[in-house]
């Protein structure tokens, strides 16, 4: 009897769970329909408003349309974003002159709507994800007056919140606080490598200043990550440091520095790159070869040609790709095409085929 009762109770419990699930499903489905209809309605309304503003015959009617749009937005971030999205999509199809007037239009709408207050309200919510989103948007809007509030979140135990706070500060170009955040994560290697790249990419201030602050007191992993992140910006004042560290015993640092030197393509660096091209590590040899191709002197060409016979495939590939950018004589070309390294020959052939194809 006990088991039978247990079975019936179990069955009833399952029925209640199913009924609850169905109810929840129905409510969520209804909500989604409502949301979709609402989004469509907003999009439609915003399209009409944007058209009204764009084709308004007079400045007065344009301003009145903008006012109407502000009323529609009514401090709702979703409607505001829909309006901006509509303008952006019009912008994509517009010519340069129209693009300029559309950018001015966004500024006018922002004056009327005051989106900063919308996101400032969102920043006060208890949801960490909403807070994070609000901080990023405030930074997009250049709302520097909220910087101090954002700084408060920098030390949050919630990693997402701290990340978004630091990212917003990077958008403001606040090197000191960004440096504090980056130093706080320097021992987490799985996290900091990617974060450093993102931050240097997003940073709106003086990247060299930020890097100098970090170099003062960071571990070698972070130092090499920063150097790698700075490669695209070719910051001249670090060139000397790159040269000094190109013979470092720290492998990561050495690789980062040789890669950085290689992107400068300076004639004065040829000696350093020639040495790096002889290194026992293939990553360094491959980077050096790319740099030598940019220098493009007869001696650099000789080293790149030598690298075509390197024992490591990646170095041969780098050399073959690089040599196509150098001034090679018909004899060199013939040597490579008939040479023993098939990859080098095919790389040259590939480039020639593509060139020929574009001429036809």
């Amino acid at each position, binding site marked *: 009897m006990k088991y039978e009762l247990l079975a019936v109770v179990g069955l009833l419990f399952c029925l209640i769970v*199913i009924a609850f699930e169905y109810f929840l499903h129905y409510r969520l489905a209804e909500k989604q329909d409502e949301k979709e209809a609402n989004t469509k309605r907003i999009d439609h309304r915003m399209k009409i408003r944007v058209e009204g503003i764009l084709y308004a015959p007079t400045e007065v009617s344009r301003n009145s349309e903008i006012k109407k749009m502000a009323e529609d937005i009514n401090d709702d971030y979703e409607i505001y974003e829909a309006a901006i999205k509509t303008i952006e999509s019009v912008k994509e199809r517009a010519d340069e002159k129209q693009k300029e007037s559309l950018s001015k239009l966004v500024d006018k709408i922002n004056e009327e709507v005051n989106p900063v207050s919308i996101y400032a309200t969102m920043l006060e919510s208890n949801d960490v994800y909403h807070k994070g989103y609000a901080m990023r948007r405030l930074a997009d809007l250049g709302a520097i007056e909220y910087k101090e509030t954002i700084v408060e979140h920098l030390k949050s135990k919630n990693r997402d919140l701290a990340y978004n706070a630091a990212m917003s500060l990077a958008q403001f170009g606040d090197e000191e606080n960004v440096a504090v955040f980056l130093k706080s994560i320097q021992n987490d290697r799985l996290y900091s490598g990617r974060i450093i790249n993102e931050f240097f990419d997003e940073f709106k201030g003086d990247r060299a200043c930020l890097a100098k602050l970090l170099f003062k007191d960071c571990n070698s992993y972070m130092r090499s990550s920063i150097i790698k992140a700075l490669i695209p910006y070719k910051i001249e004042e670090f060139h000397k440091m790159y040269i000094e560290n190109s013979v470092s015993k720290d492998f990561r640092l050495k690789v980062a520095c040789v890669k950085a030197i290689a992107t400068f393509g300076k004639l004065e660096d040829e000696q350093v790159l020639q040495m790096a091209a002889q290194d026992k590590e293939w990553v360094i040899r491959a980077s050096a070869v790319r740099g030598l191709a940019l220098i493009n002197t007869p001696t650099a060409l000789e080293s790149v040609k030598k690298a075509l016979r390197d024992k490591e495939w990646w170095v041969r590939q780098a050399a073959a790709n690089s040599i196509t950018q150098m001034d090679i004589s018909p004899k060199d070309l013939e040597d490579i095409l008939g040479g023993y390294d098939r990859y080098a020959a095919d790389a040259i052939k590939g480039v020639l085929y593509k060139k020929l194809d574009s001429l036809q």
Partner: protein
Amino acid sequence: MSFLNGVRAFIVVFNYFCMSFTILLSIIYIIQMVVSLIRVRKNYEKNFSDDFMRYEDSNNLLPISLIIPAYNEQENIVQNIRSLMKINYPSYEILVVNDGSTDKTRELVIDAFEMKPIETSIRYQIPTKQIRGVYFSQKYPNLLFVDKENGGKSDALNAGINISSYPLFTCLDADSRIEKDALLRLSIEFIKDSRTVVAGGIVRIANGSKIVDGELKGFTMPKKLVERFQIVEYYRSFLFGRVFWSATNSLLVVSGAFGLFRKQTVIDVGGYKQNTIGEDMEIVVRIHRYLRKKKIKYKVIFNELSICWTQGPMSMNDIRSQRRRWQIGLMDTLISHRVMTFNPYYGMVGMFSVPYNWIFELFGALIETIGYFLIPFSLIMGELNMFFFVMYFLLAVMLGVILSEGSLVLEQYTHRAAMSAKQSIAISIYAVLENFGYRQIISLFRLEGILKYRKLRKTWGKIKRKEFEQ
């Protein structure tokens, strides 16, 4: 008399075994459901502040090679390539590998994209059948067409890996479509955590859905029952199973239709295994095995917001062929890596995930099917308590409904459901109906896969699928 007593004793023991099996499976499913609910909810909310679209033009994303193995895909291939050209990703190349098609796949692609043969050197890091030629198009510089001798899907994928130039690659089925932002969402997993070696997305049944240029434009309920059942099945399998296994870093399968891999890891393990029909599962298990053995920290991730659409089979015959193939693939992989079973050396994968697949995914079909035949036999023998049987059956059905309906709730929660409220509620009826007939038939197909393992383990079979609505 003693024989009859023996049979009776067997029935009683088997009945108790079945009951214990069901209870254990139910507990596992409930744990999976709870973990998945928490995780999906968290991911969905986190997605708001992650604002992944910021990465759209980022230089920090790793470039991706999209490899499409194609064997007699003349119906879909051009359309598929065109849709891939519209995906939202800063840097990618498309490699179409023609695996010795006997139809017009090769001619159609070459003509449609004005491709010309080029000389290129291939670094054979993984051995494959001979590559006959590589084609390039000036008009579409990120598209390469590779023409090779027939060697099977794994061979085509390996050839694609050899030719690819980027550090990440994804294998895509020629009859699937990925959503515009799917790659962006998936590749972010690789920059969020540098330990990530594999990331898989959710595969959804496209039957009834209108997908244009990687965007869902509408849904009409598919006409056939089997298609409707598959919609429920896919939600359950992906939103519960894979989310849970990913949370414990012991996910064994990343769908062959859509998965993103770190190329060097795949090369290190020797590429896709030839002569197997479960190459998508096998490669992931081998990666687990290799990295655990080398004591390298890694992650195999499932991202439920990254979507790939696939056309599900439309007839019972095609479903039979598909499920048989899946079961054979599963069995083949488990046998190849049997050393991992209950082996603490392989952590969660060896102690939990692999044994789960042996017991519940592989032999579950066998136990379930024996149960179906033993029930009437038990009734005849007078060994079955009718009340107990009815209760047991109802509980099993209800648990199935709870799980299926739960996955539909999750799908609805993430607001990415393809259907309207009415359609969504209508489809949930099939979460109940699938327990009366469909599930049992699927069990039979899976059992057939086990029984025909030796005979069919190298046969793919062709499934007829609907073309994507344009």
